[in-house]
């Protein structure tokens, strides 16, 4: 993955940091353990990270928790940031990995998302077809997508990752990632624009 693609990915949402002054010094102070400096970084980047978490989780409460987890993890690992990419890029990647890690943990505990994916996207007679005549708002439509399909769609269609990258991130085969994104896209179109 090259820097151009990564930068493109983080620019899909609003980036409040774009209007902020250079933050190298703030990053250095946060890396040295200055919590006030880290708070400044949080203030600059939290909206974009929250938007990403919300897209992936499709649940406001989960998005809150994931956003907190991302910034706690960022604090723990900030010294591994060496400026090879923009901090926004680094945080974005950290957020994707954190959210996917939490989802994997939830799946291990619940152990049923694979079946859920098959059931909800199984075509004729499935839950999507039954509601295709009603226009839904975006949040509700995203929330109705099975987790795996939603993540594949968000990472590929919205965040700009390739299917191979999505497969590597989610631990699935590239063909599965492609199929999940395609099915999620069709389901969303049926729900939002029948």
């Amino acid at each position, binding site marked *: 993955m090259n820097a151009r693609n990564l930068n493109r990915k983080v620019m899909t949402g609003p980036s409040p940091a774009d209007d902020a002054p250079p933050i190298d010094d703030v990053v250095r102070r946060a890396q040295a353990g200055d919590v006030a400096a880290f708070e400044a970084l949080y203030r600059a980047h939290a909206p974009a990270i929250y938007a990403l978490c919300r897209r992936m989780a499709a649940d406001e409460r989960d998005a809150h928790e994931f956003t907190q987890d991302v910034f706690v993890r960022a604090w723990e690992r900030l010294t591994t940031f060496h400026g090879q990419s923009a901090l926004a890029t680094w945080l974005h990647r950290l957020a994707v990995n954190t959210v996917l890690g939490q989802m994997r943990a939830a799946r291990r505990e619940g152990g049923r998302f694979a079946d859920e994916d098959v059931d909800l996207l199984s075509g004729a007679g499935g839950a999507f077809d039954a509601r295709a005549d009603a226009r839904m708002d975006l949040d509700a439509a995203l929330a109705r997508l099975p987790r795996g399909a939603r993540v594949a769609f968000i990472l590929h269609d*919205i965040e700009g990752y390739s299917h191979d990258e999505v497969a590597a991130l989610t631990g699935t085969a590239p063909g599965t990632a492609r199929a999940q994104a395609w099915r999620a896209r069709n389901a969303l179109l049926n729900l939002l624009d029948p």
Partner: protein
Amino acid sequence: MTESEDREHREDERVAKLRERVRAESAAHPLPDDLWPAIRERIDGAKVVVLPSAESAMPAMRRAHLRRSLAWIAAAVAAGFALVMFGRNTSPRVAPAVTAAATITNVADSSGFYEEQARILFNRLALERSLVRPEALESIDHDLHVVDAAIAELDAAVARDPANPELRRLLASSYREKVDILKRVANAE
């Protein structure tokens, strides 16, 4: 424009609109609560400390285990070559054909499974490279190079003696070790 092209064009437009809508609407959600106090509480707690680097985040026991794994693989390669050499100079062992064939199939399946796992983990590491310190990356790359060289040598040995189940078992074990190494690196991040 043909009818099918026109339909395809309209479908592309719908998908483009969908993407724009998802981007615009999800970006429009402001942070409803200030999450900072909870984050501050968590990073102020004794449970969370700033780790100096990814390399030092890997506990000493894990690093020692990694070194032992590499030593094990080196020994496995040596054993593999010993098997090949002895196999040339001694009479073949007599074993039931069905059992030997089943063993080779099972071990080959096992190699394939671990090879796939290693590929997935390696891809993940490739995506997370920017999160790892350059010195740690250099060390990881070196270790993976050693493991891959061992696997390549065992692969070549298996190609020379494809009916040798011991060689295949060693190859499968080497792939499993590679997966274990990559998992330890991932867990240490």
